[in-house]
């Protein structure tokens, strides 16, 4: 049983995980890291509204923000201070 437990604990290759992280960090510039973090925060903001399907031509108010649904396959989120284009009609919605 002890041998089995030790084996189970080593199923993840920690050295490989560390190598991949170190490589990512070595290639990271302050700008690239900041951009990634800003993108993550923007996406997280949108995710909190859930997932749904919107109908073309509608407008949906999210508190002070408005999502405009364009009559094309392109949807623009206008969420101050960011604008995100999404090429799909299955998008995040309230």
């Amino acid at each position, binding site marked *: 049983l002890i041998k089995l437990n030790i084996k*189970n604990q080593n199923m993840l290759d*920690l050295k490989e*995980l560390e190598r991949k*992280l170190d490589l990512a960090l070595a290639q990271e510039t302050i700008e690239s890291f900041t951009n990634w*973090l800003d993108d993550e925060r923007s996406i997280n903001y949108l995710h909190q509204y859930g997932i749904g399907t919107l109908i073309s031509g509608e407008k949906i108010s999210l508190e002070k923000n408005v999502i405009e649904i364009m009559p094309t396959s392109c949807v623009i989120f206008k969420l101050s201070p960011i604008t995100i284009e999404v090429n799909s009609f299955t998008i995040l919605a309230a």
Partner: protein
Amino acid sequence: VTRKFYHTQESRSKLLESPVKCFRDDAWLGEAFYFWLEQIDAEKWGFNSKRKTEYFEIYSSDINCEKVLNTVFNEEHYYFWLKQIEKVAMLEVKKNRKKPTLKELNDYLKKRATWNEVTGILFQDMPSNNSQSLIEPILYNNNRPVFFVYRKRIQLAVYDSNIISNFALLDKIKH
């Protein structure tokens, strides 16, 4: 390797067929399916945080923990995880910006460092409600009780839904 875990959600008109992924900004370990290791914590979470409807539901699941980073019971995993989190955080601190959240750090490990082989992270915090503590609190001069929090509150953040099986309703509880 497979263990039983518990998932708490609001009670809706339809029963869940699979767990709900959490995207919330305040989710400790990033975008994941969150489970409790102990049913008592799943119930407390329901009573405290799933209050939008009259009932909440607890689902049980079997989860394969073979490739889960076990920061609660595996010392090697814990110190490894701590070191990696602090490495990423230092990058942010150096720039003198707002400190990153734990969620952002974990999302970085998952997405930027492509830790796709990590199927989940077992982690702990301490329960804030001490009503079920079996140990008398210490009373200081201001009569404020200070509890010794001896019980871990353990959660699993699952990133790969393939490790979840036998997801089924366990209990429906009224507030």
